[in-house]
């Protein structure tokens, strides 16, 4: 089980070339409280794409590099490690396939800092972190202040807020 806030910015590496192809920027969460995909700001310059990952750390952070945000489906993640997220190749990520995905790519469905609303109509605060299974993408908890809401408490994830039940 890992926490999302610590995973944002984690390197995405292609297994076939050992090349760094991006960094985790956002996650796409379904109504089933499971992460369906992650998004990354892809590096569009082919020259940098062929350089060894270790030499790319500084240029990757350059504000001059063009970037096209893309989607990496959870099914295409080979492993979600503590230091890198591994996928098969640099061609695996794809562009957003719908308006909803486009919003997600731009952070529109992010859980971090999203408002948590109870089914009683009371706002409890902002989501500080998300605990999830790095193997399946299943969300196991939403941290709001000192409280952790389990998956059975999550009623809906939508554009206005995440709705959770306070009943244990």
């Amino acid at each position, binding site marked *: 089980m890992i926490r999302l806030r610590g995973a944002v910015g984690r390197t995405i590496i292609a297994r076939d070339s050992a090349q760094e192809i991006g960094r985790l920027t956002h996650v796409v969460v379904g109504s089933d409280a499971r992460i369906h995909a992650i998004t990354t700001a892809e590096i569009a310059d082919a020259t940098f794409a062929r350089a060894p990952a270790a030499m790319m750390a500084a240029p990757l952070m350059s504000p001059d590099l063009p970037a096209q945000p893309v989607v990496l489906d959870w099914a295409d993640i080979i492993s979600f490690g503590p230091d890198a997220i591994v996928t098969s190749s640099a061609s695996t990520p794809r562009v957003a396939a719908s308006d909803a995905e486009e919003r997600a790519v731009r952070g529109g469905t992010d859980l971090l800092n999203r408002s948590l*609303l109870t*089914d*009683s*109509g*009371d706002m409890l605060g902002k989501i500080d972190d998300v605990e999830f299974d790095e193997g399946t993408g299943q969300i196991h908890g939403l941290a709001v202040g000192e409280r952790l809401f389990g998956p059975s408490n999550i009623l*809906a994830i*939508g*554009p*206005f807020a995440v709705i959770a039940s306070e009943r244990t």
Partner: protein
Amino acid sequence: MSIVIRATELIGRPIVTLDTAEDIAEVKDVVFDPDESTVAGFALRGRAALSTPNAGMLRIANVRAIGRDAIMIASANEVMTEETAAEKSERPARQDVLGAGVMTESGTSVGKVINLILHVQGARANVAGYEIEAPDGTRSLVPLDASVSVSGETLMVADAVQKFVADDLTGFGAAIEQFRLTGSRSGS
């Protein structure tokens, strides 16, 4: 958990669906049932600045919860268009008491009604009293039990109510209880 609020605090409160977590509308007006002294429903408007001024009607029976930050409904299907409500004769009864003059049984004018005070618990809101403004601009709260009768122009209250006004919502609950304990409208 129950709370006491002014009816105008519900204006602008978002209507949020439990199935999709979307804010589909907001409260434009609160509709009252004068016979039951309860909130009968809400007239709705769109959420965005330039959105539609009329976004339908929501009956109180279709509300799952009235919270501090949102009014919760099961889904967008709970909202009726105004046309549908009229066809089904389900438009909630209403009586506009805001602006009505306040008169005691002994014939003293004490001001006008500027707000309704609601007791909200779960998905229901009952009228607990009125907020009145005296001619000198001072404001006070009057328990519902102190009212004798009401029309569109006048709210008549018991003479005894002058002993039980509160100038803040926190103390209002105690004022209601105190009036109920002394009971008589002819005063103690």
